[in-house]
């Protein structure tokens, strides 16, 4: 594989940039693979990468219905954090933070990781207490957490509304200084390029149409580009999980919902951190291009449409303007939607299934992007070793029936209420 460096940039500049190799190939599917990963998003590509890198399995196909980076990995708001209270989540996402920090070097691809810190605003004494508790839990798990008072928040984010007559005054905040953002497309491209260089076949525009199962074991998959034999299949299809589950006669504790995001026109640097509203669901950061990147609640009803409706956007931006009054003066550049695999406790599922050789990775709700490296790392382990890694041991599929829920936000079981 051609290494990207300052030197290679200069060299190719002198030859008119005609010497660059393709970042990943466009192979025809083979008849048989050791492992097939369904879904060429961030998680699927990361899984293939870690299978090749950590477990030396390289005869892998990543099957993608659309194209690399066209799904949720290219539709999220790029936030990376590990500010969770429960051990299952905290330790898992903190492993992810370690992988994020070294990802540009590991992948030889600039993913533009920007650890600018995330600030969760608190709007009451009770919320400050809850944040102190969460911060302490985080620190016990080795995650950085700082409790900020009102004056400290004002110093860091002066554009917030600190006036006297607001409905939700700012009491303080919980900050994770090591959190931040990354260029989401680069994450997909970087993983794809490295996986491809180690021998992984990335097969785009190939839809899975069925599964070949006999004696409770996976034997292969049927696709729009022919049948493929394999003993191990990993599902990384996020919002489309229930569609594949139906082909497998499985009913899962997830529902597919629609989540919107939007960006404003670009403006000069005004916001140095990722900031979230504590009295509703709204988050905001400023991209390197200067756009305000914003998101919030689900549209609230089951949906596979990758486009949203205006009432939810209006609701979310009302919260945004309550936080940052200056937002009301900006033009909206673009809005879009993606489909989320909402699990019933708000935490993900990375597990084996009752079908031998079939592995499940789903239930990422609002937060699949930040999980990309840790999800790929642990899912690769689960597939290669046929047993869960200690970091995803809590993300069991049967935790709902056995009562071992990971109710991080106490959202309850009705995803549309969250």
């Amino acid at each position, binding site marked *: 594989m051609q290494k990207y460096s300052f030197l290679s940039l200069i060299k190719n500049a002198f030859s008119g940039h005609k010497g660059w190799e393709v970042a990943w190939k466009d192979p025809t599917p083979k008849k048989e693979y050791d492992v097939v990963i369904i879904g060429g998003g961030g998680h699927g590509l990361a899984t293939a990468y870690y299978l090749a890198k950590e477990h030396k399995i390289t005869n892998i196909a990543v099957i993608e219905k659309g194209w690399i980076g066209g799904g949720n990995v290219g539709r999220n708001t790029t936030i990376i954090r590990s500010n969770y209270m429960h051990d299952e989540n905290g330790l898992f996402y903190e492993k992810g933070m370690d992988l994020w920090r070294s990802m540009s070097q590991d992948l030889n691809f600039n993913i533009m990781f920007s650890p600018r810190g995330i600030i969760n605003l608190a709007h009451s004494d009770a919320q400050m207490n809850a944040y102190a508790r969460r911060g302490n839990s985080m620190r016990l798990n080795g995650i950085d957490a700082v409790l900020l008072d009102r004056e400290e928040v004002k110093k860091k984010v002066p554009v917030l509304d600190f006036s006297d007559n607001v409905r939700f005054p700012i009491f303080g905040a919980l900050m994770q200084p090591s959190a931040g953002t990354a260029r989401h497309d680069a994450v997909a491209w970087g993983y794809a390029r490295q996986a491809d260089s180690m021998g992984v076949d990335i097969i785009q525009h190939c839809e899975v149409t069925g599964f070949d199962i006999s004696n409770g074991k996976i034997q292969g998959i049927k696709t729009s580009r022919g049948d493929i034999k394999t003993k191990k299949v990993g599902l990384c299809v996020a919002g489309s999980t229930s569609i594949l589950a139906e082909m497998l006669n499985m*009913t899962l504790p997830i529902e597919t919902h629609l989540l919107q995001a939007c960006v404003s026109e670009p403006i000069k640097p005004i916001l140095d951190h990722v900031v979230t509203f504590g009295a509703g669901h709204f988050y905001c950061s400023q991209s390197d291009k200067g756009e305000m990147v914003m998101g919030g609640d689900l549209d609230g009803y089951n949906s596979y449409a990758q486009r949203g*409706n205006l009432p939810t956007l209006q609701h979310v931006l009302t919260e945004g303007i309550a936080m940052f009054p200056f937002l009301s003066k900006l033009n909206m550049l673009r809005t879009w939607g993606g489909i989320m695999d909402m699990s019933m406790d708000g935490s993900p599922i990375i597990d084996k299934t009752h079908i031998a050789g079939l592995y499940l990775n789903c239930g990422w709700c609002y937060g699949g992007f930040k999980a990309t490296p840790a999800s790929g790392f642990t899912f690769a382990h689960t597939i290669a070793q046929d047993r869960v890694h200690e970091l995803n041991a809590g993300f069991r599929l049967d935790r709902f029936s056995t009562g071992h829920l990971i109710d991080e936000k106490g959202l309850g079981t009705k995803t549309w209420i969250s």
Partner: protein
Amino acid sequence: MLYIKCPHCGLRSQNEFAYGGDASVKRPELNKEISDQEWDEFVYLRKSPRGKHLELWHHVSGCRQWIKVLRDTSTHEIFNTYKSEEKVG
């Protein structure tokens, strides 16, 4: 914007409604022994189909009745609406 025809009030915008999820889910009978698996199916497991989906909506800012809506989850097209007690065949 979705427009939902409430069987009691007529066509109204989605702003007046709250979503109530899959209407085909049945609560286990109270007067019999219920297994963990039955509770699991009722509380957590959902088919979440792409395509036609019969679902509950609450006309919370209107007549406050629960209604059933047959809607396509990929196009958001609403085919029909029913009163809560109506059989949908």
